[in-house]
């Protein structure tokens, strides 16, 4: 072996994950005509954008970003989104379900289930159809949830955007079957093998900007049966006698603000977040109200087209 090879260190776990994800992103660009990267503004999306830039440098990323806005995201998320996209010079498409907006569908008036169905799942399908995307890249990880643990990296969707968990394409080695018929599509998950802890360690290593809501700070919250919810704007319906109190909280996972549970925390730096995540005894999506309504809720939503 030559001298240069002796200097090489074995790749770290994060290096492995990074290389695997970049390989997946390049595969999407090479095999699909009209791919898109789903940008949800969260930490996983932030990692995806970072990887997207690396995968194609020095060229700009060969695909746009798509944000499906429900109208109920934290205000800080939208500000962060617009700032990041401008900084990076990325092309962003924002889609809102106009029918839902007209009918005033929201988590407060219609309940979580209808809101997610109309403003997220239906909106997503509308956007994919409208722009004719044949591959949609998402930041979902297999460690998040049981049905995700069974999903492929390149996950086939019918022309109706449905997932059939019983009939998935076998994925051998890292050979992905990217063939689809017109109208069909795939959802691609480059972070499949990352854990929550991997994501935070990578964010720290790479200095990736994330929304401040992930860091503990004094925020106005109400306590409902032990569940802390943040009052982000005047649309939040306060119950009789309920008054928002300032508590030091952070979010592990970001969605629509009335559906996302704040957690009391002192973790206001990346190091503290990583330490908290390492010791945390609760799974990440326990902070999403909808996920816990039925044992197989996520599988059901995914069959219907949810990410």
């Amino acid at each position, binding site marked *: 072996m030559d001298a240069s090879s002796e200097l090489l260190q074995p790749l770290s776990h994060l290096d492995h994950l990074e290389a695997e994800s*970049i390989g997946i992103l390049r595969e999407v660009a090479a095999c699909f005509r009209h791919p898109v990267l789903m940008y949800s503004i969260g930490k996983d999306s932030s990692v995806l954008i970072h990887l997207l830039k*690396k995968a194609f440098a020095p060229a700009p990323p060969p695909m746009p970003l798509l944000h499906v806005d429900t109208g109920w995201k934290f205000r800080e998320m939208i500000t962060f989104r617009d700032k990041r996209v401008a900084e990076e010079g990325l092309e962003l498409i924002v889609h809102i379900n106009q029918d839902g907006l007209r009918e005033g569908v929201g988590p407060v008036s219609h309940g979580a289930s209808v809101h997610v169905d109309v403003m997220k799942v239906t909106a997503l399908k509308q956007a994919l159809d409208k722009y004719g995307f044949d591959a949609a890249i998402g930041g979902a990880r297999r460690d998040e949830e049981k049905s995700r643990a069974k999903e492929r990296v390149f996950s086939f969707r019918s022309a109706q955007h449905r997932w059939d968990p019983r009939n998935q394409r076998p994925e051998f080695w890292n050979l992905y079957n990217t063939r689809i018929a017109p109208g069909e599509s795939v959802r691609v998950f480059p972070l499949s*093998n990352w854990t929550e802890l991997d994501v935070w360690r990578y964010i720290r290593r790479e200095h990736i900007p994330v929304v401040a809501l992930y860091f503990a700070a004094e925020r106005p919250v109400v306590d409902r049966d032990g569940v802390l919810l943040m009052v982000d704007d005047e649309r939040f319906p306060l119950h009789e006698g309920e008054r928002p109190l300032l508590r030091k909280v952070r979010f592990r996972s970001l969605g629509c603000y009335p559906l996302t549970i704040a957690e009391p925390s002192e973790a206001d730096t990346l190091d503290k977040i990583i330490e908290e995540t390492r010791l945390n005894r609760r799974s990440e999506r326990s902070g999403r109200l909808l996920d816990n309504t039925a044992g*197989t809720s996520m599988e059901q939503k995914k069959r219907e087209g949810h990410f």
Partner: protein
Amino acid sequence: MSPIESGQRPLLRFLTCGSVDDGKSTLIGRLLFDAGVLPEDVLETLARDSRRVGTQGEALDYALLLDGLEAEREQGITIDVAYRYFSTAERSFIVADCPGHEQYTRNMATGASQSELAVVLVDASKGLLTQTRRHTMICALLGIHHVLLTVNKMDRVGYEEEVFRAIESSFLDLAGELGVPEVRCLPVSALHGDHVVHRSVQMPWYSGPTLLEALQTIEIVDHSLAAPMRLPVQWVNRPHADFRGYCGTLVSGNVARGDAVIVLPSGRRTTVQQVLGVDGDIACAQSGQAVTLCLDEEIDISRGDVIAAASGPPEVSDQFACHLLWMGESPLLPGRPYQLRLGTQTALAQVTEIRHRLDINTGQQLAARHLELNEVGVCHLSLDQPVTFEPYAKSRALGGLVLIDRISNATVAAGMLDFALRRAANIHWQHLDVDQTTRATQKGQHPRCIWFTGLSGAGKSSIANALEKRLFALGHHTYLLDGDNVRHGLNRDLGFTSEDRVENIRRVAEVARLMVDAGLIVLVSFISPYRADRRMARELFAGDEFIEVFVDTPLEVCERRDVKGLYAKARAGDLANFTGVNAPYEAPQSPEIHLHAEQSDPPALAETIVGWIVAD
């Protein structure tokens, strides 16, 4: 920052296989539980689910942790591979939890393709079963080097050492027969947690590692690091005219600036000008890294090409022997074209022959005309174009393939290449860089330069013409270079001085050489009076390619014939430097063929040359 904190832990990917009856899910559940990596809310859900649908009464049913799909929970079996992630201070683990039922063999094989180690479970009270052989065989087929035979339910056999030793002994035989190089056996009780994470007081006779200790300490050597460099080109990065980079993940070896590389299948050679890692310019990159290479010369490279170390390139072929695991709902039929994917390459492939089917339960070789779902066969594959490959035993990345049905787009087979059926030598880097042998083979002939020399009017052109007609009729590919004709074009600028005669011969010889390289039989009909020039011509060719034919006709006969009236002109002093009259002719001393042309007619003389060519 500790190695763990910085994410510097080595990673082990392993699969677990065994059926529900063996307690596989209980084992993994116990492993995760005892290793302390299960979050509290997951345990709460588990407790709730265990009471509702569990099979363990009031106790936790760990199987429910892993069987994530509705259908699996309803039926209480694992159908699809589930991936689990956990880490300890020593290692990070990705667990592919695989179904053990025969009808889900393809799913187990999928998990095995991603893994370096397999945990194969058996029930101590049942010993080795048909399925143990099947699981081990699939692991061996997918190239897994390390198998941990985990003998579970030791509590059911009273933690008896003899029971374990008997199972261990027969498994070592089986693993040896199937060619698994590294085998360890350990006794556990997943239900009670004996030897999963914690040592057991029940089995003082066992001094080996617990399951977790074994997983943490088994040394996995990444052989790809020391192998020659290979980069399957995935994407060509060309943002502007000044940058052209070839992106992909290095599947073996390492690459540095200045390295000599070969691009396959074209065989073009060049050197590496720049290595870009994921953060820009780097001096050197190694196997596993996603890179972008810039090369010294602008050569045509696209997705599917393989950039490799020039000193040790992989082979190229279009005919293979391979093991195929059939995964399609409808059977594999020889002769039907499927889309093949190998690395970043695609081709159309058909199975030309099923040598035999392997019974995955017994290992028996059986005759087969087709392969059904979950069957394994040793097959011959024929591709519509050559691909760059390595045997699967050497490289999963360049030896593992999938076949895709072109109508349903379903992935219908996974294949492991064993070897090329056609030796790569005649295709290798001669495929695009086609050489003389390839061209000659295509034409079915030995390329030759048949060089006729002799005086003007000796009959060279007549004989050459007759010979060409004869060879053409025999199906050969020929061309006749005639002195007079060439002087009308290529050599129009040349006269008859000694210098010009030399240049005349040099040019004609070079043209003849190109034509021989093109695979043709070239007939050269030139007076070519000087020995030195004829020798120069001869030296442009390989040993047996140049055949000198001396058309030996006496001067007086030529002069008497004087077809073109040139001798008369020369004798009259109107033609300077005319060979035989006022310029010398140096007769060959040992020509391959010596024709006494005044004795026979051209077709008969041509026939003697045909005999000479065909005879060899």
